[in-house]
């Protein structure tokens, strides 16, 4: 039983910008960051007479997403006009999809409440393609009321992914977004960069309150609030947490319910960490959808769906499962590796297979490999060390040619220089120390340090560290643990 007498109900609407070179209905460059209004043409400016022509690549990416989310793909898909007036919408309508979206009834599995146990299934209501609007910039400082419009973004392809209201906590919302972003980046559908606006989230939140605190008692639904302006997953989590508390307080104070109060739109204020009621949009909510007469419906033959499904990359959830099943990784390790992307997973599998020790391979990947990648902020594709070279290095540790800590230095050197393990070791003067040479060194140290030996014999065992330190100075390749073992033997405590 919950400590609070309500259940949180959240549905998320996610817009992602597709990774196409050009816009959805014209050939303008779709990339981010150009000077305002330099990436436009008669079509995306909505000039009289201009007509849209569908970008086949965008459709392909959308189809891939619909299939990856286990959605039902109808055999015929059409475009519709969503009519409303706004200065950043040059045609006065947005080309979108209304009643025949690209996919419906999909699902996304996210991690369960405590990170283990069965995954939670969040149903996906629909996935559809649409064109983005431009950007309005308002300058209302010092009594001036200038508005400027940049239409570079107008017409870039957006995929809208609408979940059912299946999400039950702020944490779960974040988990859903994290998993969705991971999937979309695996599919090469979007870079999901929230800062550049290529992933945007709106959350619909309300509460199902049980005033008598009984699971079987009556349920009261609070009015639905749509939260906008959240610019990170963290912000989504915080905004939902805030909104839940606010709605419960409001319900306690006013008793307003979904049946008595209209849906409201609130904006998240990241600095104040509050949601604020937004001004009513200057448009009617009746979008007068009707079929876009300038575009033909798209017929999607079964064979095309099958072909896209056949070429589908392995999805993150499947990889996690495989890393556990085939390579014995625990859920946390598998998840961490999967989050580094497809190439990282492939690298891991190569190392694990060649080395024959997946756990050790996973440790190296999670610690040393990831560290150098992070230090250099680069992807594994640019790592100068091939999987075979890393395996060679690890084998040399096994053979006693160098210690694990020296191996880390060697790896760093390999990364910096692009040399093989053996070359890097040679350059660093690393060679294995012969057992008898190590014993001779230790005997010499014991003989020439009677005070330390006396201290050790008197029970101050930590004094032996000084001998290990001297050995390291005399021969950097000396394995400290071996030195320690031999010295103890020689002193004979």
């Amino acid at each position, binding site marked *: 039983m919950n400590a609070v007498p309500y259940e949180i109900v959240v549905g998320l609407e996610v817009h992602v910008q597709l990774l196409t070179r050009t816009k959805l209905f014209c050939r303008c460059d779709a990339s981010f960051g150009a000077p305002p209004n330099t990436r436009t043409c*008669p079509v995306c*400016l*909505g*000039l*009289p*007479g*201009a*007509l*849209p*022509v*569908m970008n086949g690549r965008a459709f392909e990416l959308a189809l891939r997403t619909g299939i990856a989310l286990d959605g039902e793909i109808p055999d015929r898909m059409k475009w519709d*006009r969503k*009519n409303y*007036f706004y*200065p950043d919408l*040059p*045609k*006065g*309508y947005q080309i979108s999809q209304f009643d025949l979206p690209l996919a419906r009834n999909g699902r996304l599995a996210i991690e369960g409440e405590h990170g283990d146990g069965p995954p939670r299934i969040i149903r996906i209501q629909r996935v559809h393609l649409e064109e983005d609007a431009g950007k309005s910039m308002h300058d209302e400082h010092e009594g001036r*009321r200038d508005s400027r*419009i940049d239409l570079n973004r107008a017409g870039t392809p957006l995929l809208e992914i609408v979940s059912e209201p299946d999400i039950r906590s702020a944490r779960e919302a974040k988990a859903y977004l994290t998993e969705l972003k991971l999937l979309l980046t695996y599919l090469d559908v979007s870079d999901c960069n929230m800062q550049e606006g290529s992933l945007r989230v709106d959350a619909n939140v309300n509460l199902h309150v049980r005033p008598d605190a009984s699971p079987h008692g009556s349920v009261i639904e609070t009015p639905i609030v749509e939260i906008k302006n959240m610019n990170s997953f963290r912000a989504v989590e915080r905004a939902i947490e805030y909104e839940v508390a606010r709605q419960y307080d409001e319900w306690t104070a006013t008793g307003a319910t979904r049946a008595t109060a209209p849906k409201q739109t609130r904006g998240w204020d990241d600095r104040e960490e509050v949601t604020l009621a937004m001004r009513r949009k*200057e448009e009617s909510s*009746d979008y*007068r959808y*009707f079929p876009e*007469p*300038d*575009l*033909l419906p798209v017929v999607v033959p079964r064979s095309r769906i099958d072909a896209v499904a056949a070429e589908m990359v392995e999805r993150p959830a499947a990889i996690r499962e495989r890393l556990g099943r085939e390579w014995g990784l625990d859920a946390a390790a598998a998840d961490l590796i999967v989050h580094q992307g497809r190439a990282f997973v492939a690298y891991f599998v190569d190392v694990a297979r060649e080395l024959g020790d997946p756990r050790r391979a996973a440790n190296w990947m999670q610690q040393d490999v990831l560290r150098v990648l992070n230090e250099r902020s680069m992807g594994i594709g640019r790592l100068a060390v091939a999987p075979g070279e890393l395996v060679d290095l690890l084998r040399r540790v096994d053979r006693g040619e160098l210690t694990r800590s020296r191996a880390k230095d060697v790896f760093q050197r390999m990364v910096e220089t692009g040399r093989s393990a053996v070359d890097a070791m040679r350059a660093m003067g690393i060679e294995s120390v012969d057992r008898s040479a190590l014993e001779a060194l230790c005997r010499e140290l014991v003989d020439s340090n009677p005070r330390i030996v006396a201290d050790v014999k008197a029970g101050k065992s930590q004094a032996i560290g000084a001998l290990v330190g001297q050995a390291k100075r005399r021969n950097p390749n000396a394995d400290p643990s071996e030195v320690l073992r031999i010295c103890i033997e020689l002193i004979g405590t």
Partner: protein
Amino acid sequence: MELTDATATELLGKLASRACSAVELTRSFLDRIARTDSSVGAFLSIDERGALASAAAIDRRRAAGGPLGPLAGIPVAVKDVFCGRGVRSTCGSRMLADFHPPYDATLVARLRAADAILIGRTNMDEFAMGSSTENSAFHPTRNPWDIGRVPGGSSGGSAACLAARQAPLAIGTDTGGSIRQPAAFCGVIGLKPTYGRVSRHGLVAFASSLDQAGPMARTAEDTALLLGVIAGHDPSDSTSARVPVSGYRQALGEPLNGLRLGVVRGQWTEGVERAVASAIERAADLFRELGAELVDVDLPHHAYGIAAYYVIAPCEASSNLARYDGIHVGYRAAAAPRRGPGAAEDDPGAAGDADDSPLIDLYRRSRTEGFGLEVKRRVMLGTFALSAGYQDRYYVKALRVRRLIREDYDAAFQRVDLLIGPTTPTTAYRIGERSADPLAMYLGDLFTVGANLAGLPAISVPCGADGAGLPIGFQLHAPPFQEESLLRAAHQYQSATDWHSRGPELE
């Protein structure tokens, strides 16, 4: 004979044989326009300098033996609804009075590539909404046969300029009859091609699923010549057809023996002027003499065409015209609000709400001042018919009717090759006679909207005159992409008659 009385085909012969130069020919049409257009008003703009420069370039190329396009040196008048790079393209609207598009419509580019002389832009009902060219924001066009009468519309300027011998070829557009009806009123040929036959890229949209550009001329041969230049698939128009273009002129000479000509007799009884009905009867009889077999056919849902059309077209128009908002393209109202006694009282939408935001106020005033009454009427009709709660009753139902009408034609074309009937119920009416009664004006489209709703090609061909000497046209419908059959029938008819060689006295 004056050069301006010759057909385009004849003029091509004169140019080829060096009987005249392109500059001389262009000059004679420009002179004709200068002498006659103050009474006709067919043109919104005349590009004298550009036309003469193109003509001179073509003459030089011909002299040098260079390659020449199929319309080399022939003036073509283009309805002012097409975008031309840097060319003022107004759509007959105050909204676009200063619009100079940065790009060429595909049709305009094709005319240029064919070495046509783009002599000027013709007048039209604002945004092609109307049947009389009285809805032009600039001036009405008058029928050259009787300047007290309308030329029809919305391509009234194109039809009138042909009848007035101001150009040998013209381009119109047809959403519900806007090529065929003015062609009938002005005694010329107007062909509305199959939907998708001619690219709409750069054609300023009125109703996207119905709009189709087409050729207008005085003879079927010239019409075929012009259609051959403008027809064809265009990758910039997703709705343009990937159907190969026929050699329209090659088939013209084939006799009509065995042609099954459907007569929709039920169509031309009620509301059709007697002179019109009997001219159509005579045309049908002539076709029989030319070897056609007449077959009675029925189009059971024909009567619902007007109702369906006047829902679908305004719905699409309400959306297509949303872009004229005073922000991006076109007319923008001045900053100071103009309320109270200044605004026309009968002008719907002129009165704003006191609590409008500055943005809404700018929208309202720009559209109120930039659009004419008929455009506003249709935008409101369409907005209403698409609204939540009304959409099923109007828009969705109209689409169902549209499908039934298409099925009627499909069934008819199982039995016959072409259909014949009147283009219009009446001949040209007086200016002002119907402008106060939109419904009467709409009913004039009774016989023409079917081809648009069904996407079929149809042609209007001059076939007589009423007691006042006003032209009458018959209309032929064909199955999709059978423009060739329409042109062949029209040519055979014109080979046996001389209606097309008659012209009004203007000077």
